[in-house]
């Protein structure tokens, strides 16, 4: 009897959990993108929510995280890289008076 009620309780709990999860997924599906950071931090489907000390914690969570493992090294190497030795424009404006820094973004 005890085993049976424990089993029933476990099944009930699991079904409830599945129901809640289905509702959360249903709500998430109504949103086309990732939640903004402060919302994602609370959302268990995006690696958020309260944590226990023992839990594994988030790693990057794109749905396609596994897709890109077969990288095309040769292709990546041939990609034209931005010129990294050029400083950012705002670091070259020590006095903060350049029009492209104090007033607006550079348009080019």
């Amino acid at each position, binding site marked *: 009897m005890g085993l049976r009620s424990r089993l029933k309780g476990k099944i009930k*709990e*699991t079904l*409830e959990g599945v129901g*809640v*999860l289905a*509702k*959360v997924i249903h*709500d*998430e*599906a*109504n*949103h*086309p*993108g*990732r939640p*903004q*950071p*402060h919302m994602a*931090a*609370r*959302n*268990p*489907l995006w*690696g*958020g*929510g*309260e*944590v*226990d*000390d023992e*839990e*594994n*914690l*988030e790693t*990057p969570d*794109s*749905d*396609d*995280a596994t*897709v*890109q493992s077969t*990288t095309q*090294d040769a*292709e*990546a*190497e041939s990609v*034209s*890289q*931005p010129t*990294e030795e050029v400083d*950012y*424009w*705002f*670091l070259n404006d020590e006095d*903060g008076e350049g029009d492209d*820094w*104090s007033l607006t*973004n*550079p348009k*080019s």
Partner: protein
Amino acid sequence: MPNALDPQQEEFHVTLMTIYSVENAGIRYVSAALQREGFDTSIIFLRDWVHNSLTMPTDEEIEIAMDVIAQKQPKLIGLGFMSSLYPIALEVTRRIQERFPHIPILWGGIHPTSVPEECIPEVDYLCVGEGEMAAVELCQALQEGKSTIDIPNVWANVGGEIHRNTPRPLTQDLDWLPYPDIRDDNKFYIEKNSFTIEEPWKRTAEYRIYFSRGCPYNCSYCYVSILRDVYNEKGKKFYRARSVDHIMGELRMAMKMFPKVARIKVDDDTSFAFGDAWMQEFLERYPKEVGIPFECMLIPPMLRPNMIRKLMAAGLVRVQTGIESASPEESVEFHNRSPGNKSIMNFAEANKELGLNIVYDVIIDNPHATEKMKLETAEFLLELPMPYDIYFYSLNYFPGTALTKEGLESGDLDPNLVEGKTTKAWRQFRVSMDWPRSDEDRFYLAIYSLASKSIVPRSVIRSILDNKEYWKQNVDPVFYLAWAANYGKMFFVALRYFRNGELTWFKVRQYASLKQLISQ
């Protein structure tokens, strides 16, 4: 309205409050600055912004806040809030004024900074701009019974007369700032008609930190355009960085006080553009002294693969950057942004090898965007190598931004559509599929959404886009395909998290329960 206090009072307590903004760093900085000068402070967090269904706090919740104030007997109440939350802030303020007519109220944050003329009649004081020094000087004046009408940054409504004070120069040395106040014992977190005395940030695994203030960009829709207007200082740096040493000190404190912290979110509008010496020191010290995975936002010109590679070695796991619109015309003419397509595409190609998790910001619902602009964004998203995620933002008009001012001046923008008067952001800060949109906008939202999902082959999406005239007229199947792809993605993510042990029934139930209770 009252503003004079008994100078004989020894204990000067300040209660600060924020609404739907548990992650509000500004109020924690102000609190810490006041504590450093010997003032006692408490912070009330009235609700947490968990999702897109914001409602007024319940009477019971507001009453709890009143009871905290009654218990603390502050000599000043400071309320910091965003524009969208103005109706709630006003209601809470009126309740405070009814029950505690003798306590002066100070409003701060981006809304009072944006539209001080509209705000000042409602309260005793406003803080316009950065608030740490202003709050300290105001409290010192109140404590000593001195005049409060000529404090830089502070607008005063005293005896029916308004005193408008220009802001002091921006704090150039950010190391002057104290570490934000993240103590437990002076925080009151009100949610679900009850409260806990705790620092609510501790509930998640994430610690949010600012390495800098300001931004190199001046996008028309962003609060930065407001601050640049307020300060407008030639010869001063608007974009300012803390020293690595100061940052490491805060992170060491955070790790001690937040034992569960497993992720650092660098909340700057952009970071790591502080010069070679700064970068070198950070790259050496962060992995040794902190070593916690971190994420950050970067403007497109900063997506330089060599730099990203070094940051990844130091613990960078995710980067967020703004496409906003891939249409050069929309970027320049409406958003006042330099088109970042080339930088983003270069980085995305290199990222095939790097494998960094990347999230792009995309703004939709611009009523002035032409179909050509929307199509350019769709094409660009389809060109971008997978995988990536998107943060969709619905274009909201926040008061005081360059975009809003331009719209109001030209007559293109109905004043009632400005946040604070409307509350669109309560429902559409995070874009939802079911928000009323034209067929054309539903079509492009569906395409953008599909572009970031691997479930639907890109050849299918391309084919839909090639026949856009037909599908715009018959948008429902495309729209529901995007919806179904969202379901598929979330199901896949849930499955993976369950398998990894990162998703538990407890977490799911807790989140669902929080959402349900907040949206009641």
